């Protein structure tokens, strides 16, 4: 087991760590949202919208518009 942080990191310098950290923050603060992350958010939004009366009505109104968008997101084909 390493005795201190220099031994634990071995040959890696702070420059390598800085590169990794910069990439990590670039992904974290990116305004582009990958489809995977967006799909993770969906259950929460639907759960919330289905819980209240007024939001449930809005959800059902929005459903027909939402389905083609989701199909397009999955298949990559645009429906006409």
């Amino acid at each position, binding site marked *: 087991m390493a005795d201190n942080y*220099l*031994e634990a990191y071995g040959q890696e310098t*702070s420059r390598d760590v*800085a590169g990794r*950290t910069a990439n990590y923050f670039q992904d974290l603060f990116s305004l582009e949202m990958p489809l995977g992350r967006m799909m993770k958010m969906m259950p*929460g939004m639907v759960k919330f919208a289905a819980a209240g009366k007024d939001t449930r009505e809005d959800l059902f109104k929005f459903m027909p518009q939402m389905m083609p968008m989701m199909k397009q997101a999955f298949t990559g084909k645009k429906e006409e």
Partner: protein
Amino acid sequence: MLEQVKDWDDDFYEKFKPIAMGFVNEAEKCLQCGKCTGQCPAAAVTPSYNPRKIIRDLVNGNLKRVFSSVELWQCFFCSGCYSVCPMDINFPFFVFMFRLAAMNEGYGWEDVKQLEGYAEKDYLKKGITVSTFERNPEAMETVGDISKIRMAAGLPPERKVSDRGLAEINMISDLSGMTSFMKKIGGVELLDCKTCDDAQMKRCKNKPLPAKVGKIKTKLRFYNYGEPGGKAHAEA
């Protein structure tokens, strides 16, 4: 092994500023006056914790030392350092950002794991932010169990949150990624000295820190900023 100054990435802070979109600023203006450390309650208990040194290492680019330190996890966000800083450096926000970065490097997951019980038991299921069980032991002795006081006053033992409120809390948790995060760190029980049995105690002696928290491998952290001290130092 000796570290050399050329190993440090002194451009990192300049590169990091535009990425963070104005959330962090002015660390380069740090005077190293040490007012932050002087008033810090965490530093009074753990003398090795030193906000001034962490800011210095950040600006100099000695990131290995910051990320692998135990000290990065001593701050409890009282923001006293921010209020006394003559240059208005928001140090707690740096701590917040660099804890994320340290977790990306594999450090500190065992500290975050301790939030899971609270989140799963009370916050996500019942919507309660302050549990009855996590109260100050001293207050428990003098005031007693808060649920009993509530019942004597004719209230239910715990605060009731409406279904809609609960759904909103769960939505926020899903949207912010907290739910998936909690799933990711689940799976390994942390040992509590008060409730552990003989088998757990044996395991604890063989293996002082969890090597894995959920699916994530954790790395051992070090006291990089001096002797941890503790009670003896706090009294002196």
